[in-house]
């Protein structure tokens, strides 16, 4: 597969970091602002497509990507299973418990009919398992989309089926 012109390559190099940052932000802030694992993962996935086209790089480590994909899904379903230790499937066993990772207690919010609705300016490390699941879905989507793009790229440029 051929590389593209120096203009495209330079722009890709410049755009790489901002797009990656934006995608990561969408994933990590998924529990606070619009977005989440899938949306952020799709953004980073398109970044991989841009990289692949600009540099003609098809020597991706497909095995590693597929392992990351499976691991992302396993972390997701595993987190849901861990909720069973607190009594319910998908139970948010980290949120609001003071656990250092994503377990920060919510300070602001209001109580409506006995249900606590947190306000929008909640801290980043506050949502418990939701953030963990966002990150795992994000990893899964990045790996999955990249795999698809690499397989399509391999097929388009070498004529051989590249999917594992």
């Amino acid at each position, binding site marked *: 597969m051929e590389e593209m012109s120096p203009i495209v390559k330079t722009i890709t190099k410049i755009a790489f970091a901002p797009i990656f940052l934006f995608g990561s932000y969408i994933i990590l802030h998924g529990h606070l602002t619009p977005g989440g694992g899938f949306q952020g993962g799709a953004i980073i996935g398109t970044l991989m497509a841009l990289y692949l086209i600009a540099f003609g790089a098809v020597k991706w480590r497909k095995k590693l990507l597929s392992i990351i994909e*499976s691991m992302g899904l*396993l972390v997701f*379903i595993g987190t849901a299973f861990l*909720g069973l230790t*607190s009594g*319910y*499937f*998908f139970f948010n066993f980290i949120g609001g418990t003071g656990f250092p990772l994503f377990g920060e207690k919510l300070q602001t919010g209001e109580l409506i009919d006995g249900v606590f609705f947190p306000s929008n300016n909640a801290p980043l490390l506050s949502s418990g398992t939701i953030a963990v699941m966002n990150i795992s879905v994000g990893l899964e989507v990045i790996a999955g989309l990249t795999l698809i793009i690499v397989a399509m790229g391999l097929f388009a440029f070498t004529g051989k089926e590249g999917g594992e």
Partner: protein
Amino acid sequence: MSFYDSLIENAPAIIIAIPLLFAFATPLISKLSKVLRNAWAIMGVLFSGALMYVLAWEVFRDGGSVARTYVFGGAEGTSFDVLSNIRITFYVDGMAAFMGLIMATVALGAVIYSLSFVKKYTGQDKYYTLLLLMLAANFGMVFTGDIFNLFVWFEVSSVAICGLVAFRTNRGESFEGAAKYLIYSTIAGLLLLFAIGILYGQYGHLNLEYLSAAIGADGTILIVDKIVLGILITVFALKAGAVPMHMATPDAYSEAPAPITAMMVTASQAGLYAVFRTGWTLYGGNISRAAAELDLIHAVGYVLVILGLLSMFVGVTLALVQKDIKRLMAYHAISQTGYMLLGVGVGLAVYASGDNTDFSLYGRTALAGGIFHIFNHALYKGLLFLTAGAIIYKAGTRDLNKMGGLGRDMKMTALFFIIGALAIAGIPPSNGFASKFLIYESVFHFNPVIGAIAMLVSLLTLASFVKVFYAAFMGPKNSEMKTGEVPRSMLIGMSVLAGMILVFSFLPSLVLSEIVDPAVTALAGPGPEIGTNLTLFSGQGSWNALVLLGVLSIVLILGILIRSWGQKGTVPNGEGKKPYLFGNPTEVNGNPIVVPASNVYWGFVKALQKYYRPMEKMHSGLINEYVFWFVATAGMVMLALAFL
């Protein structure tokens, strides 16, 4: 709380979570070892299925009308209120447990059968992953109590099935079947999403229990309710493969690997389940029963009866002329779906007519027959698809005209095929007869013509399976075919289903009272007590398989006695050696008359030329036209509901 209690409480979620967990881990495990991966996939189905059996037992013990509610993410105690909390809920009542039971059974047979069947193919890690995903989606569709969640499972099921239909990547036809199925189910899924959007806009909730109470709450049915109802029924009937939305079904069924086809039968029954839920619970639910609402579901009952009649007749007549063994069986799957739609449609129409004596006289029997047929259909159709897979595995072709003489080596497969064929044709004493018996008797009471059509369709079903049996198992052996029986895991997979058919053939009344009645109760409310004796009562007549078995064994003994008095050995030559062909000539100008197996019923087809010609044009293979039929049906159902 004991471990068992908490297991049962969490079972609705765990039954779905186990196949998901095992599916996600399968790609990783298959990198380690193939044997481990196969064991892993079987373990996933086995654990999930075992838990499903336990849960179903618990639900049936309560009588079926008590739903076990599971709230994802947890709720405080039992005082969970759907109005103040927006959470995904699962409801498992008698009907859902009944469907789950079927899915678990067929999946177990299919996954064991897969071990040998897909051995020679690449991409087995994806195969098992998708198989487990499909199982999870099947369970999800029947358990969910949230209509958006229902859409999600609908899509998961479609995507998994599409991937599995295209499993044999060396065949172009596989991709064609998969693409048709994908386009069809995507358009259906988007229409479903549209309908859900309307419901959410109107009522602000997605919970089925809440929606059921909110629709028609003040005695009037809004026009949006009717539009949504029309869309929901058509979309789910498409998933079930009802005519005229069946066009992509034969392509997908015949191209999928045999065990997947068996599981696709249960996936389409999940669509059927959603049709019934829409009619009985979402719109006709346990509510005020206002006059406007009763009129609406009365019309729904008639829509289901019409769809059922069309599916039965078109399915079986098109099956009769097929030469591809799996396509033939796929058309039979459509035809049998018609029986379920008919039985439940009659039940719904009678239920909504407001005449309680009619309902207890034959409406409830029709409903029970339709639901009982779901159970029987999954078992015998699953078995038949597995035997078709075994035939193709050995014969190397799916063309009936090129097969022959397989019965000489594949005695077990032939036996399983006979069991399945007798059951699908409704020949006593099979389990298929028990459920069809209930449908015939009650539908005849509803409308004698429909009852007669139901019997005619059974007759044609028998005719086409005689054709398959003759073409595949009888006659001289084709020397190009491989010899010997299929591998052991395929035989075990088939015997799981065949054994269940045999057991339930002789105990139909037990199945009816212990498994089917809770499902009927979940839909139509509690009915009269059904005794646990061995005779099946339809309200008009009764049926006891054991009596017939006794008579048959007496006849068999007499036959053996008479045979023993006769001349020993076969007649070596002379007139006795020639086949008896009713005095018809067997030769023309010295050449033997040969009719290809696929064209055995040429007389029938020629007589019905005026019917077959337009049918041939309708099944053009163009997905655009198929989508037109689907959208047109949706529009017609909507119009019919709006103006009736």
